[in-house]
């Protein structure tokens, strides 16, 4: 009897939830996978025959170059974020607890601010007659304005600026879990600072590093508005290619293939992340 009464609510909830996710997550994703194996059609977007052509086209030197350049910029971005973020997260986890909350709040404030506006703020600073150049010239450090905007460096600075919190937060959480006793034990067993760092701290914070890499590397290939605003036409990301193929060239199959390669990269990174976590679990730290 009771069960009968509560069945309609349960059924309604499950239908709503499943309906939404199947229609707006599973179906569209299957559609993209399907599209990547079809042929371009100017009228209906997609048509038969089934082909691997789109994936082969990704290897076309023109696109391959964009992909590799994008991967390169994303990797440098990730590395810079890691180099800044690792010591930052470490230092943050050593601050007194009551202050940590405030500091983390300060870290997420900019990342709740419109990312376009923040990218634009960088443009304000880096333009030829922008603030950095004006200040440097007033100080007499340079005679001519430096060309900062529309370079590879500008795109990387923009990406680092937008993505740094995504590297810091997972790192911070592993440093938070790092047990002080382990470091003391390592010290008591006669390990020096460097040796403790290499053999204890690095392996224990590795899952955080990988999570951070995952959260930075992929968006760093997709955030098409950063090169649009800061990078000029020569520093494109994979995201720009996908956007152009979908919105301008109307070549869905090719855009779909490009986005699947991006997704596979993500899947690979997640797999590595899981593996590293499990390994640490097994070692019983």
């Amino acid at each position, binding site marked *: 009897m*009771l069960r009968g009464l509560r069945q309609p609510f349960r059924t309604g909830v499950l239908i709503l939830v499943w309906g939404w996710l199947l229609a707006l997550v599973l179906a*569209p994703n299957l*559609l993209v996978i399907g599209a990547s194996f079809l042929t371009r059609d100017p009228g209906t977007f997609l048509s038969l025959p089934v082909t691997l052509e789109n994936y082969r086209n990704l290897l076309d030197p023109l696109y391959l170059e964009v992909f590799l350049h994008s991967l390169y910029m994303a990797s440098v971005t990730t590395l810079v974020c890691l180099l800044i973020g690792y010591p930052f997260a470490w*230092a943050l986890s050593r601050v007194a607890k009551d202050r940590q909350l405030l500091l983390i709040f300060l870290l997420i404030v900019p990342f709740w601010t419109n990312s376009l506006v923040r990218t634009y703020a960088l443009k304000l600073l880096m333009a030829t007659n922008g603030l950095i150049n004006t200040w440097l010239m007033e100080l007499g450090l340079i005679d001519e304005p430096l060309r900062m905007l529309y370079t590879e460096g500008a795109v990387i600075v923009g990406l680092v600026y937008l993505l740094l919190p995504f590297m810091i937060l997972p790192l911070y959480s592993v440093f938070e879990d790092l047990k002080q006793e382990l470091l003391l034990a390592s010290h008591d067993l006669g390990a020096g600072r460097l040796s403790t760092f290499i053999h204890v701290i690095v392996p224990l914070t590795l899952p955080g590093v990988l999570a951070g890499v995952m959260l930075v590397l992929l968006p760093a290939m997709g955030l098409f508005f950063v090169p649009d605003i800061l990078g000029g036409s020569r520093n494109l990301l994979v995201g720009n290619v996908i956007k152009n193929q979908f919105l301008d060239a109307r070549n869905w199959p090719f855009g779909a293939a490009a986005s699947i390669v991006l997704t596979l990269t993500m899947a690979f990174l997640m797999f590595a992340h899981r593996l590293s976590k499990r390994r640490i679990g097994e070692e019983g730290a």
Partner: protein
Amino acid sequence: MTRWLPRTYLTLVYILLYVPILVLVVFSFNESRTGYAWGGLSLRWYEALFSNRAMVNAMWNSLWLALSAATVSTVIGALTALALHRYRFRGKKLLNGMLFVVMMSPEIVLAISLLALFLLVGLQLGYVSLLLAHVTFCLPFVVITVMARLSGFDESLPEAARDLGASDFTMTRTVLIPVIMPALLAGWLLGFTLSLDDVVVSTFVSGPSYEILPLRIYSMVRVGLKPEVNALGTLLLVFSLVMLMLSQWILIRSKR
């Protein structure tokens, strides 16, 4: 190790994070048109902003979209969290997996998959397509927020309600909803901010019939520097800040 080194380092990184934002805010009050030189205090860019009809229109559109997307995603997200927490059903892993995919996959992948779907089923791009897309990407964040609240919750309460003869619906309304209220509010605010700030997904699924703020900003900042953007950015910053503080306040207060 000495204590001043980590502190100096933290301070330095915070300065780097905040300098561009501060410059933006300061220059939004700049009289000069050039945007590089200081020409005195002025509110002219704020005036320019609000006398631009298309801009004001886009602001209202964005606000309405964010309000509705946050509300719908909070309702569906809360129900999803309840289902995952309380019910046993087939395909739970798949459900979890789909939420995970939405959260982890690059925004652009979500964007093109939704665009493809909307165009193939013949949905006109505009408010409805934006709403569906925004609710979808806000959903996992609401689910996580509510699940976190539910997992630290005494299971004997719903059982007691059940034993006293309450139906599932009544029990949800009278016991569970009050318990997860702070999480609902926090999730709503999160969804609101996410929706208001989204650029990538909106670029793909919006149509000319419904212009929203981020896309208007996008078309403005692609070429050159526009002082109005400083004013708009400052307003958005203040707005996000208030929202964020509100959600943190709710979460912290509810823990006590």
